[in-house]
Every structure is written in structure tokens, then in C-alpha cells.
């Protein structure tokens, strides 16, 4: 699980940074959250170093993905208005 966390953390980081430019950083955020959960679960057992690595990568990917994606044109409503062409 620790290795899975690290691998997913690195992948999420790459996706968040790479796809963030195309406004798809949210994909990296989702992978990042999974990496964080796996990393935190693994830290309870052995291979804490690898688990921490996955955890850190996941956190960075999550933060980067949120910044790159959540522009929040409107918390409510105005975004829908724009999308419906009003």
C-alpha cells in the first residue's frame, strides 16, 4: 500500500501540473486524495518513509489541482447562467 501511495502520488503530481494548464488539474486532485488516503493508512504500519513520500506528493497534487481548477466564476448561479448562454 505504501508503494501504491508513492506511485499514485507521483502520477497525481504529474497530472496536476501537466493537465493543470489545460484546466484539468481536478483529475490530479482526485488521484492526490487517493494517494493521501493510502499514504496515511500505510504510515500506521511499516515502510513509513515511502508512505510519507506518497502522502507529500498527494498533498502537493491536491493543492496544485485546486489552484489550477477552482476558479469559482461563481459559487452558485452565475456559472450556470454563463453555461446556459444567458
Amino acid at each position, binding site marked *: 500500500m505504501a508503494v501504491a501511495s508513492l506511485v499514485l502520488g507521483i502520477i497525481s503530481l504529474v497530472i496536476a501540473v501537466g493537465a493543470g494548464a489545460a484546466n484539468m488539474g481536478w483529475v490530479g486532485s482526485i488521484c492526490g486524495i487517493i494517494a493521501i488516503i493510502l499514504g496515511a493508512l500505510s504510515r500506521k504500519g511499516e515502510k513509513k518513509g515511502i508512505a510519507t513520500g506518497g502522502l507529500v506528493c498527494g498533498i502537493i497534487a491536491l493543492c496544485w489541482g485546486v489552484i489550477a481548477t*477552482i476558479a469559482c466564476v461563481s459559487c452558485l448561479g452565475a456559472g450556470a447562467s454563463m453555461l446556459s448562454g444567458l
Partner: protein
Amino acid sequence: MGFNFFGAFIPYYGLCIVIGLVCAASLGLFLCHKKNLDVNNFIIICSYLIAFGFLGAKILYIIVSIKLINFKEIFSSLKSFNEFISSGFVFYGGLLGGFVALIFVKKVHSIDIKEYLQILAPSVALAHAFGRIGCSLAGCCYGKVTSSWFCYIYKNSIVAPNNVRLVPVQGIESACLFMFAVLFTILNLKKVKINIFILYVFLYSILRFVLEFFRGDIERGIFMNLSTSQIISACIFICVIVYFIITKNHSSKKTVL
């Protein structure tokens, strides 16, 4: 609405959300250390809360704005789908999603969430406070037009009306949430025997119900002259009162026995 940083556009709202999450996580980790709780469990709970919270916030936004959303256009291209994903969230949907997350964590990971809920109250309040700063900077969730000196005037907002005095509801809510965060942190450190999370939900329901009267973004769902958030706030308020009555009766019976 944002700024350029070495060629990359950084939106204010996203940045505020991240700052809020980092500050909230730091506060939570500090309180975990003070109360000798497992930090890893706190990280797991927070991760599920973020995931389910965003999902819940998006789902409630879709429910409330369904008449305004053109689904055909959303799925017509990747760009419009991404725009749909990145904008439009309702806090109460996030809160409801958070409740689902807590049940999920308890069932799947067998983590006793009671003690962590006490820590989550100030953390969530802090994250929410920063989120409202983001709303203020982005121009969303704006207030009604006012003639008062106590106002906020947007100059270049693509959401809020520009060059008009608006009630600064986002700033007011943010200030109140910062006060809640401080209060709940003190209650945690003093180890006061009170359900801090229920207190947060109770206080926020009152705050949100009142502030909704000063909101000017009429795209919110309206039912019986109350907005969706006001109806949810009223339901939460009633549920908390019922909870207090039930727990009081339960503890009275225990004393008698």
C-alpha cells in the same frame, strides 16, 4: 479573477481555498498533538471530507441551479465540461457530503470519529473563512445593493455588479467564521465538555439564515420566499434543538436511575 505569477494565472478563489485547507490542516494537526490523537487518522478523515465535501457541494449546486444549466452544452466539449467542474459549489452541499464522509470513514476504516469531530469544528470554520475571502475577491456570493457606507464596490468583477455599493456579506461571514475558529480552538484546548461540532453547526445555521437576507445573487434557489440555504439552515437549527432535548432527557433519566 486572479493574478499572474511567473506566467501562470492563479485564481484568487482557488488560492484562498488552498490557503484555507493548509491552515485548517495545520490547526487540526496541532490540536491532534495536544489531545494525543493519531495524526494519520485525522489525515484520512480530512481527505474523505475534502472528496465528499466537493462532491456534495457540486451536487447541491446542480440541484439548485438545474433550470439554468444546459447539460447538452456542458458535455459538448472538454472545455465546457472543465468550466462546469471548476465553478459552482454550495457550502451546505459540502457539509452534507462531509456527514456522509464521516459515516463512510467509521464504517470502512473503523475510526472512532467522536474525538476528531471536536478538532474538525475549528478546522472547518477556518477553511470556510478563507473560502469566503476567496468569494469576496472573486465577486461571487455578493450582497444586495445598499446606500450604506459599510459596503464593498467591485470594479472589474465578471459576476457581481460593478461600481455599485454592495453589502459585504462575504466579509461579514468570513469575520464571523474566524471568530468561531478561535472560540472552538479555545474550547478544545480548555477541554470543555461540550459537543463543539454541534455548536459550530448550530451557530453557522443562525449566521447563514440571517446573512441570506442580505445576499444579492438572485440565482440561488428560492422556495416560499426563503432561499435554499435558509431552508437548510432552518432544518439544521431544528435538528440541533431536537438533539439537545433528546440528550438532555437521556442524561436526566440516567441521573434518576
